[in-house]
């Protein structure tokens, strides 16, 4: 919580005791219920109150404003004239049920330093526009937090959604608690709890969430504590393998610190993907990069290589998918996430759709390459394999099938897919290191371009094609002072939309001068 006392509030002389409260919620969050509770509290405590909203189609996940005004009821029973909508610069209490909605309330001018208490939940309900970006399109909550600290007279923020869920309720209850706890309204805690009890639905859960919200608003410093650093994965397995692992691990420890930081998870990833020997190959590749790196530049090149070589080596093939789907840790995780109890039974359905390419990829490299070049064989494979498969992985037949495929790791190095991946990896590394002598920063950016290769089937093909186009465009700018900057821009453009429109634009720009 921040308390912003830089501005003295200016009460309206002619408007004795009026309180203007707006709620900005996402459809389905119970903004209407919260509004009803607040109205009930006000009326039960001798206030005249009026609420309005524009629910309409906005119930369907859109952003919705609810608005309440209240004033002490005069003895003569005269009714105050209340407004039906919040106005910019004229809101005393702003409650927002999501972080970006807090941002929206600031944009709309409902939060001002002279009067507004802003109570917001810090959790995110991502908008479609944020989710559909092929890269990372999530809006920056920190920017909103920073703006809120300036815009609000008083700012109370906590993850009220988490508090509600933890207490088996919904966010409207924890936000009512926060409102009560903030003391922004002249009513006691009992009054709010009475309103919840009068509501009659899910009372116990609502009261628990209310209490949690109340406490969070009163002692929000606990909310501000930084989250504990993520726990690092630990190696498990037979003693002999563990001993070898520790040897590899000590090789990582000997690397320069910035490199080791990413090389350890990288090594874990590739060893988990294949075996210890594969881990040695990883370290050898890394050493080759390190030999050409520059300590004065903080080993940026090797650090990035540690990350992306690991990702490239642990490619997504059928064997990896089957392996991950049949691990004991996965069963345990799903049971936990689904809230499975002893008396329940869990049925699991996996959705697979193998294509001829995946099947050919499992064949020995030479044979696979011949099959892949032969349309007849490919159409035959399509006929045999290319269809959606729903596997009930809790049944033995499906589980054992997946288990056997997951056990094909010994076979993997001989496969066509492996050969293709290795070739791609070698080309990409060679290309990056080729730029190393003339333009260190560009080499680093080329390493980072590996981020573009991801997904399965069409998505994977699209990723590869974007990667190729970015690499080709980089060749056009290589040699310029700002080449690295352009490489970064190209990569970011490629991650912005599915079809690559932004990337097309960036390439057009480059062609206009290169």
């Amino acid at each position, binding site marked *: 919580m921040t308390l912003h006392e830089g501005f003295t509030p200016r009460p309206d002389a002619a408007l004795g005791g009026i309180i203007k409260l707006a709620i900005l919620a996402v*459809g*389905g969050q119970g903004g209407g219920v919260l509004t009803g509770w607040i*109205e009930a509290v006000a009326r039960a405590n001798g206030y005249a109150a009026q609420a309005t909203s*524009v629910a*309409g189609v906005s119930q*369907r996940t859109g952003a919705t*404003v609810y608005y309440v005004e209240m004033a002490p009821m005069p003895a003569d029973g005269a009714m*105050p*004239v209340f*407004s*039906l*909508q919040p*106005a*910019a610069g004229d809101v005393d209490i702003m409650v927002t049920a999501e972080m970006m909605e807090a941002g929206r309330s*600031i*944009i709309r001018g409902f939060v001002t330093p002279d009067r507004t208490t802003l109570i917001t939940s810090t959790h995110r*309900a991502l*908008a479609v526009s*944020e*989710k*559909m970006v*092929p*890269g*990372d399109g*999530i809006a920056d909550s920190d*920017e*909103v937090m920073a*703006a809120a600290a300036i815009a609000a007279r008083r700012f109370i923020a906590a993850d009220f959604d988490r508090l509600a869920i933890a207490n088996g309720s919904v966010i409207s209850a924890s936000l009512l608690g926060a409102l009560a706890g903030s003391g922004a309204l002249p009513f006691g805690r009992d009054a709010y709890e009475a309103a919840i009890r009068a509501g009659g639905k899910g009372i116990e859960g609502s009261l628990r969430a209310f209490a949690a919200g109340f406490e969070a608003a009163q002692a929000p410093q606990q909310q501000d504590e930084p989250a504990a650093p*993520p*726990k*690092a994965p630990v190696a*498990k*397995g037979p003693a002999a393998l563990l001993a070898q692992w520790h040897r590899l691990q000590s090789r990582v420890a000997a690397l320069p610190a910035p490199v080791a930081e*990413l090389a350890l*998870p990288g090594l874990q990833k590739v060893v*988990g993907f294949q*075996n210890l020997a594969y881990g040695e190959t990883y370290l050898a590749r890394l050493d080759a990069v390190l030999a050409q790196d520059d300590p004065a530049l903080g080993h940026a090149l090797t650090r990035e290589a540690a990350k992306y070589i690991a990702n490239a080596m642990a490619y997504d093939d059928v064997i990896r998918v089957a392996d*991950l789907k049949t*691990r*004991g*840790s*996965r*069963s345990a995780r*799903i049971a936990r996430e*689904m*809230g499975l109890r002893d008396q*329940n*039974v*869990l049925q699991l359905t*996996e959705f*697979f*759709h193998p294509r001829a390419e995946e099947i050919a990829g499992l064949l020995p490299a030479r044979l696979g390459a011949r099959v892949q070049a032969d349309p007849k064989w490919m159409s035959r494979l399509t006929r045999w394999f290319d269809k959606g498969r729903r596997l009930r992985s809790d049944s033995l037949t499906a*589980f054992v099938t997946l*288990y056997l495929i997951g056990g094909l790791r010994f076979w993997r190095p001989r496969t066509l897919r492996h050969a293709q991946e290795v070739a791609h990896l070698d080309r990409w590394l060679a290309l990056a290191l080729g730029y190393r002598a003339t333009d260190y920063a560009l080499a680093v950016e080329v390493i980072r371009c590996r*981020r573009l290769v*991801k*997904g*399965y089937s*069409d*998505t994977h093909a699209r990723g590869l094609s974007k990667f190729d186009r970015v690499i080709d465009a980089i060749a056009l700018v290589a040699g310029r002072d700002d080449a690295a900057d352009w490489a970064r821009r190209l990569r970011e453009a490629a991650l912005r939309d599915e079809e690559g429109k932004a990337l097309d634009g960036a390439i057009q720009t480059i062609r206009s001068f290169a």
Partner: protein
Amino acid sequence: MAERSFKAEVEDLRLGAGETFTGEGILAITKALLENGVGYVGGYQGAPISHLMDVLADAEELLAELGVRYEANANEAAAAAMLAASVHYPIRGAVTFKGSVGVNVASDALANLASSGVNGGALIIVGEDYGEGSSIMQERSHAFAMKSQFWLLDPRPNLPCITKAVKDGFELSEASNTPVMLMVRIRSCHVTGSFTTRDNKRPALSVREALSNPQSDFARVVLPPMSFAHEQDKVRNRWPAAERFILDHKLNEMFGPEKAPLGIILQGGMYNGVIRALQRLGLADLFGNTQVPLYVLNVTYPLVSSEFHAFCQGKDHILVVEEGQPEFIEQQLSTFLYRQGSSLRLHGKDIFPMAGEYTGQVMLDSIAAFLKQAAPEMLPALVRAPNEDKPRIPDLTKTVPIRPPGFCTGCPERPIFAAMKLVQKETGKLQITADIGCHLFGSLPPFEVGGATMGYGLGPAANAAFDGGGERRPVSIIGDGGFWHNGLSSSFTNMAFNKSDGVAVIVDNYYSAATGGQDIMSSRADNPTKATKHPISKALRGIGIDWVREVDRTYDVGHMRDVLREALTTDTPGPKVIVASSECMLNKQRREKPLAQQAIREGRRVEAPRFGVDEDICTGDHACIRLSGCPSLSLKRLDDPLRDDPVASIDQSCVGCGNCGEVADAAVLCPSFYRADVVHNPTPWEKRLATWRGRIIGWLQARRAAKRLSFEVPA
């Protein structure tokens, strides 16, 4: 079954004389109808008056007790036509629909009704949906009152005034033999407050009784020469009668000092906004006592010139507060002034913005600007010379994403649009028109399917120019609500008659879902007072459309895509129609969730499906989201330092509709989705089998784990 039940609120409709009603504006209107002896009510749902229809539906018992007939009309035209009962019979009738959509649909019936004139009070309650949150085109219902010559009430937005307007409306209608439109804005429909109730009143003549004694008078029929006489009657008799009634009963109100050099004329609906602006300028108190004279038009059509001139007496400046455009009231008042040779300065749209909602800020800025011109000495010093040092608040407009409404979690329409997006990947972009209803969200990202909406039930008709076909067939989308509203006649007979080569997709979710889940002809629910369960396909065959494909589980994206592809490529001549049916998930959950919970408590076997994502397998490309947009399918950032992009993640709100798995299959996306069905109260055999399988699977897992290295985060 409507989305919201008003069974509890219906009890408030029984309140008697001297009691206090507290609740929403729309409920207060319903109560006022009963207090004023209404004989029949009807209408068509749509924001913001859906609740009025839902309350009436839930109150059928009470209506029957009072002898009031209630119809859930097929559309607004049917509703307006129903008011014909008030033409010959002294029965009060009221219908309701949303403006301006409803007024447009109903205009034929409204025009004829206004020409015939009425004997019993006829009230058209229009929920004006203008400004923020509106889901329709922006225009004014006002024009319809003007062109057809019926009267328009726009009461101050509080419950006592709105309920009084119902009473005034009936009386005005009867006094002037003219239908009256009562306009309530979207916020007044949902505004809460209290008013003192009166006893409900049975109609003096019920529609049943009237049916026993039929009446007709050809002078009321809209045919020449009677229609010419109606036109004269409107101007010579009805209009002056209305003016007299408005003056005698003081339907318009004046507030503030009698003597002042300036004044404000406003629509009743603008009153609270104007008062708030004056309050903020220090010119009014909490209770609306104002230092600026106000002339509040609770009747915005017709305007009474004598009353207007009386208000203008001694004033130099007048401001007209009239939301929306064109500025009909301002033009009329200007004419009044001009005809009188007045030198008074009339302000309005020269200060206020021509278009858009009069928000708090607009109201404050405009009224302050008016006062600066007309009487600067009235303004507080702060407004005249603002010199406050405001902190610079960072601009968040680039950060905060827009959040338009979209399909609900588990919506059965989502997979239809996923399938359409997949088909367009094969065919290239198609010419697609849409209709009105939830399905219109398909035109937003991530689907962006559909490029036009011409009105309710007009989706396929909007493709008529392309009916002749071409290289690729035109596609249109319409909902089941739109189909029964107007679509069967305007869209499908049009297609059939003209031998259209087009494809039409009817999105059948068992309800008029966008307006709140009301039952319609093809609803699958039992409804004691309505005829349901009439398949859309039967209606199509009845008008000679034979190429009809019914998809009974829209969640099967692959099948949906194949059917679409077939419709686009088949050699069959004539319209190709797909009826894609699955129940609205919002309504389904509301019905089934409590039943499932009860079954679990009672020890019966229940499967609860939910989807999940294996985050190690998800590569963070979000292709699945581009075929979904489901609120429960979101993203999460991993703690893994090797991962750049957030991965897909499904939260607890998932209802297990299946779209995620289906698109992953149909679009060949990735194998990271799984469906987990938690079986509550499994059978003993099922439980034994699961234990036995679990042991073998566990043994296999342990066996492999013992031979390899794995890296796991300790729990």
